[in-house]
């Protein structure tokens, strides 16, 4: 080494994206059986073979399956013998993608397979998600995911940031998608209150599904994809665990992650937001300063299909796929985890100039 200057970071891109249909029940297939077609699809898009992948990282959650180390069974689907370089996060696959991105940045690998899956159908999702809450002060009360989102929605309504008709319109716009993989498409009745002020139409469908992307660095990305979706920045931030400490009408962690990811340097034309509830889109639009000119969730977002642990990765995949298809030049993707947008990840993706 003759220079003390840090080397230029490598350019890394999403070069392929695949996802399963999201279905209310998939009892006829095991997790690995659900996942495999998605893995084969994403690999085939690049022309790579499993053995060519430099790093593999996945996201899933044992609490959905009710079984410890459930992700190890899914590894059968990636051909983990002879041994591969592999890692797992007990979170949405968007965070697995973050880990893979750092692995590629370090130069340890040139390609990465990132996948995520979740079957919500075996359990009662609203009850299962209570187990991620503070075990001392909150979890013993069993406040379910819809109830916590409803507290946030009421706070927004009280603050004058939205009202029930606007929330209904967000749900209707999201489900007007032509995404063939979505669980809910077209007009869906707004329905009764689940936990007031949130109605059925304000909440995501409960579904099973999987998503996968392939990342590649530098020239490798250009070989594998006609128009790679270059990751210009990714950042993720977290807020205080205690709900009563946070301002539920805002998401400073999303704003900070977006700033660090470079989202505010130039306007984006597309935003894929992991807003599981209509009210969360209101919070995220404000935090990300998205105007009406931005196409928000053309895929339908989590309100059209919300496979746990895969919905966040799917937002990055959907944003990238729009760049691959030439429908977007600069897109923002967001993923979240925890109650009321506790943890937030923002990625900024760009296609080569045309």
């Amino acid at each position, binding site marked *: 080494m003759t220079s003390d200057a840090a080397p230029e970071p490598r350019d890394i891109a999403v070069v392929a994206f695949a996802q399963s249909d999201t279905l209310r029940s998939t009892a*006829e297939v095991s997790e690995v059986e659900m996942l495999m077609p998605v893995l084969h699809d994403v690999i085939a898009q690049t022309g790579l073979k499993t053995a060519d992948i430099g790093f593999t990282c996945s996201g899933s959650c044992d609490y959905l399956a009710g079984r410890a180390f459930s992700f190890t069974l899914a590894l059968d689907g990636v051909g983990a013998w002879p041994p591969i370089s592999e890692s797992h996060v007990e979170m949405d696959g968007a965070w697995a993608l973050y880990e893979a991105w750092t692995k590629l940045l370090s130069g340890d690998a040139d390609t990465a397979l990132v996948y995520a899956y979740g079957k919500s159908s075996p359990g009662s999702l609203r009850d299962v998600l209570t187990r991620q809450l503070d075990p001392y002060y909150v979890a013993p009360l069993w406040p379910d995911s819809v109830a916590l989102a409803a507290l946030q929605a009421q706070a927004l309504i009280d603050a004058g940031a939205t009202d029930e008709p606007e929330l209904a319109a967000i749900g209707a716009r999201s489900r007007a998608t032509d995404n063939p993989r979505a669980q809910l498409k077209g007009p869906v009745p707004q329905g009764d209150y689940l936990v007031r002020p949130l109605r059925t139409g304000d909440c995501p469908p409960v579904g099973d599904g999987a998503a996968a992307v392939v990342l590649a660095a530098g020239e490798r990305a250009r070989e594998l994809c006609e128009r790679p979706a270059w990751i210009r920045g990714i950042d993720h931030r977290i807020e205080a665990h205690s709900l009563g400490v946070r301002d539920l009408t805002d998401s400073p962690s999303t704003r900070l992650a977006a700033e660090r990811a470079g989202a505010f340097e130039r306007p984006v034309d597309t935003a894929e937001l992991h807003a599981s509830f209509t009210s969360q889109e209101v919070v995220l639009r404000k935090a990300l300063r998205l105007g009406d000119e931005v196409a928000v969730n053309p895929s339908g977002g989590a309100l059209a299909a919300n496979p746990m642990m895969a919905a966040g990765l799917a937002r990055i995949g959907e944003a990238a796929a729009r760049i691959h298809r030439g429908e977007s030049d600069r897109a923002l993707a967001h993923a979240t985890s925890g109650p009321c947008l506790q943890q937030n990840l923002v990625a900024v993706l760009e296609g080569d100039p045309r």
Partner: protein
Amino acid sequence: MPEVLKAPLVVEFPFTRSLGPVQSAFLTGLRERVVLGVTTRDGRTLVPPVEYDPVTAEEISDLVHVGTTGTVTTWAWNHEPRRGQPLDTPFAWALVKLDGADTALLHALDAPGPDAVRTGMRVRIRWAEERRGAITDIACFEPYDGDDSTVTVHAGEFEDPVHGIVAQARLDYTYSPGRAQTAYINALAEHRAVGERCPACRKVYVPPRGACPTCGVATAEQVEVGPAGTVTTFCIVNIKAKNLDIEVPYVYAHIALDGADLALHGRIGGIPYDQVRMGLRVEPVWSEGGRYPDHYRPTGEPDADYETYKELL
């Protein structure tokens, strides 16, 4: 295709969690009908209290006594209470800022209906009759117009403080093993063992999981294997497991069924534990009405040659 198997799966876990000094004082206080908060260096009072300032990460431990009345900062009407929630009649979830506190506590609010609840309404704690040092010592909040605030410094010292909680949890699932394992389990009930062959490497997996871990492709071709097999490796178990009616020591072994390319595991019986060896030929023994082999016993054949199973170790 036969119907996929399903069975109830209940996961219950009583986690015993220890409390630090701040959480111990708070939960012991609830037992004594006293609500404690913690003050940060810049003068905010956090209720429920935490040991580290969420803004500065500074360790904090100055306890203050706050009121048992407060104000609703946001709420949500829960018309269908779920198992484990504080009330079994319709109620509001509420974040309540207790008098003297700067942050809000989540709990249930007992009110006649959603029209009786609004942000800014005044409420007070309804204590549980039996209290033991847990957040559920607060039964819920109830509407109340007064002000019982008594914000004073509190040492947080009690006789017989609680140092831990037992966090009970129960989750109910309907487990389905999927297509491949359903076929395996159904065959076992007929005293047969079936595996699946990988279309690429031709290996036969038992039990089948629907995928070849080497090739990462789906397996589908069913192959009947066994019934006899070869012990590839084993261990001698000397610890008696709870609820397991088997005399120790006993032998637990990897068994490569004839025709299979992966060893499964099972208990070896019908032979003294110290005579079990690699290469021993065994066959399954089903108990009366059993849906799976109870154990494996020697067939009486000569031992298998090491060369025939060395790849399956």
